[in-house]
C-alpha cells in the first residue's frame, strides 16, 4: 500500500497522526501532515485506512 497527503488540502487537523502515529508525521511549525514513508508497512495498513476515513479535509489517499 502507498499513502499520499495532499499538502494543498491538509490543514493540520492532526487526526491522522492521532490514529496512525507511526505512519504520519506533523510539521513542528503548523501541524500539517506528511507520510513517514510513502510505502506503508503491512502492520500499519488498517490504521492508515482509518486515517483516510477520518481526515476532515479528505486530504489523504492510498493506492492498494
Amino acid at each position, binding site marked *: 500500500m502507498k499513502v499520499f497527503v495532499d499538502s494543498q488540502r491538509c*490543514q493540520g487537523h492532526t487526526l491522522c497522526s492521532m490514529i496512525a502515529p507511526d505512519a504520519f508525521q506533523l510539521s513542528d511549525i503548523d501541524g500539517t501532515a506528511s507520510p513517514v514513508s510513502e510505502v506503508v508497512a503491512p502492520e500499519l495498513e488498517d490504521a492508515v485506512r482509518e486515517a483516510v476515513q477520518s481526515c476532515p479535509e479528505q486530504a489523504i489517499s492510498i493506492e492498494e
Partner: protein
Amino acid sequence: MSVDDIADIDRKKNRYHFDRHTPEYRLQFEKITEEMHARCPIAWTDTYDGHWVAAGSSAVFELARCPAVSNHHDISGETPFQGITIPKASRATVVRGGILEMDEPEHSIYRGALNPYLSPAAVKRWEPFVDEITRAAIDERIETGSIDFVEDLANVVPAVLTLAMMGIELKKWKMYSEPTHASVYTPEHSPDRERVNEQHREMGIDLINNMNEIRENPRPGLVNALLQLRIDGEPAPDLEILGNLGLIIGGGFDTTTALTAHALEWLGEHPDERERLSRERDTLLNPATEEFLRYFTPAPGDGRTFSEDVEVEGQLFKKYERLWLSWAMANRDPSVFEKPHEIILDRKANRHFSFGIGVHRCAGSNVARTVFKSMLTAVLDRMPDYVCDPEGTVHYDTIGVIQGMRHLPATFTPGKRLGPGLDETLEKLQRICDEQELARPITERKEAAVID
C-alpha cells in the same frame, strides 16, 4: 414582478425558518437538524435580513472551502462583507475579528506568525504547565467534596494558559475570563449587559497596555509575535493586532470551557462509560475527545459572505448574499455518521468539523485538546465518583454563538490536596514562565516546561 424576481424565488425555493439565537433552536436542535438534512441541506431563511444555511456535511464541506466564500469583515461598512457574525453585532464594531475575518493572502500572513506558538509540537511543551494549573484548581476544592466544574475548573485552566501563551500576567486571568464568558451568555437587552460591557472595556484597555509594554520591552508570546510581524516591511496595524488578540482570547476561553463542562456532565450521567474511559484511556481518550467535540460542537458555526456568484452542490448563490455554515448540524449528518445523535466514545471515521474546515481550521485546536484532556483525566483520577447536580446546572439559554454552560455543580468523595492552591501556584508558574521563556515559538525553544 420581474424575470429576475421570479428567478430569485426559484433559486430560494428550499426555505427553512432558521433562527439559531432562540432558545427553541437549542431545545429542538435534533429535530431541526433532522428536518434540514432530510429536506434542505442548503436552505434560505428570511431571518436576519435573509441568509443561506448549510446544514449537510457535504454542503458545509464544499462551501467552507469555496474560493467565492469570504470571511472578510469590512468595518467601514462600505461593502456588504460582514465577517463571521450573523446578525452583525449590535455593539459598535471597531476591529475585525483577526484572522477569522480575513481572506487570503492576508489571512496566511497573520496566521503564519501565530502557528509556531500553536502547533502540536509547540503546545506539547506546555503540558506539564497545564497539568499544574489543573492540579491547583482541583486542590482548591478537593477537600470540600464539592465543585462547580465550570467556575472552579473549566473557566480557570484555559484562561490561565491562554494568557501565558500570549505573554500576559497569569494573575490577571479573572479580569480576562469574566467578561469573555459573560459577553457570550448575557443577552443584549439584559440589565447585566452594561456591567459586562464595562468589564469588557477594562479588559480591552489592559490588552492595549500590554501591547504597548511589549512593544517597548519585548517579552515572548503571541502579543510579541503580532508586534514583530512585518507586512511588506511595515508593522501590522494596531487595530488588526488587537483584533487577533481578541480572537485568541475569545477562541481560547469559552469554547474549551464549553467542551469540558458538557463532557463532564455527560460522563456524570453515564458512570459506566466514565469508568470505561478512565480504565481504557490509553486507547479511548483520543477518540472520546473527538466524539465529545463532534457531539457538542462548542463553536456551532460561522458566517460568511459570497464574494462572487457561484454554484455549489447544485445551488446558485449571488454575490454579497450571506451564509451560515453549521458545523454543529454537519456533525450530525446521518450520511457521514452512524447513529449521529449518540455519543460513541470509540467512534471510528469521525470526520467532524468542530474546528471548522479549510484554511480557517481553528488555530487553537491543539491547545483545546491538550487543555481538555488535562482537566478530564485529572477529574477522572481525583474525583472518580462525582455526581452532578441537575438543579444547579445552568446551560446557556441559546447556542447561536457558543454551546456553553455557566454552572455545573457536583459532589464527590473528598480527597487530599497534592500541592498549594491556585494563587500560590500561579505565582510559581509565572516565575517558571519568565525564567524558562515558555512563550517562545517552537522555532526558538523545543524543550517542555519543567515544573520545579
